[in-house]
């Protein structure tokens, strides 16, 4: 199963996890990214490239399913305005064994950071600023090149 969703609604973790567990596998690894509250940001906006985003995320998920023989790969990404503490992104991988699930989950989040057309704008007390790309994200994505 591949499930890729770009949505403005909040991410319902419990519902996503229950859907994953219905696949009857041995292990499920997940990653949730939250809007950080500790650097003065009071609102975060996510812009994306509709259509291209979904295709990019589906390609990332499909590669993970193939590479780690996953039973399921899930990527849910929020767009639009969100507050500190809210979930921006959720990735999950389900596999018969834990190493495959854990590695694939790390792959999903590392690759989507560089492969999917999303842009963040941070608001701090009325001032808005586009977030600059992090070199660390390129390095994290590059470590999966074989």
């Amino acid at each position, binding site marked *: 199963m591949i499930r890729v969703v770009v949505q403005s609604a909040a991410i319902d973790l419990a519902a996503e996890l229950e859907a994953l567990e219905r696949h009857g596998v041995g292990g499920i690894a997940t990653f949730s990214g939250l809007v950080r509250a500790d650097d003065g940001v009071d609102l975060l906006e996510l812009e994306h490239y509709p259509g291209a985003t979904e295709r990019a995320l589906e390609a990332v998920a499909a590669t993970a399913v193939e590479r780690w023989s996953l039973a399921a790969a899930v990527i849910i990404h929020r767009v639009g305005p969100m507050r500190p503490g809210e979930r921006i992104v959720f990735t999950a991988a389900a596999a018969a064994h834990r190493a495959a699930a854990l590695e694939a989950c790390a792959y999903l989040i590392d690759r989507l950071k560089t*492969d999917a*057309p*999303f842009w*963040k704008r941070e608001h701090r007390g009325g001032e808005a600023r586009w977030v600059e790309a992090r070199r660390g994200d390129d390095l994290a994505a590059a470590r999966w090149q074989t």
Partner: protein
Amino acid sequence: MRMLYFAWVREAVGTGEEQVTPPAEVSTMADLIDWLSKDEPHATAFADRDRLRTAVDGVFAALDAPIAGASEIAIFPPVTGG
């Protein structure tokens, strides 16, 4: 040809979408950016090529990528999702 702009590129150009009809000699993404930069606000928006990324029909493409036959070209900053 439909142009799409995102994030601060969209703000600098002043629109998220426009139709353009480049001449036949505009054959790569770099050519297209040069051609669009003949006027403002595009010249300022596209001044620093290192800060631009592009896609042809929804697929990431390098600046030397050919654009012949493309129906949708997007120009945007490096991505910052997740």
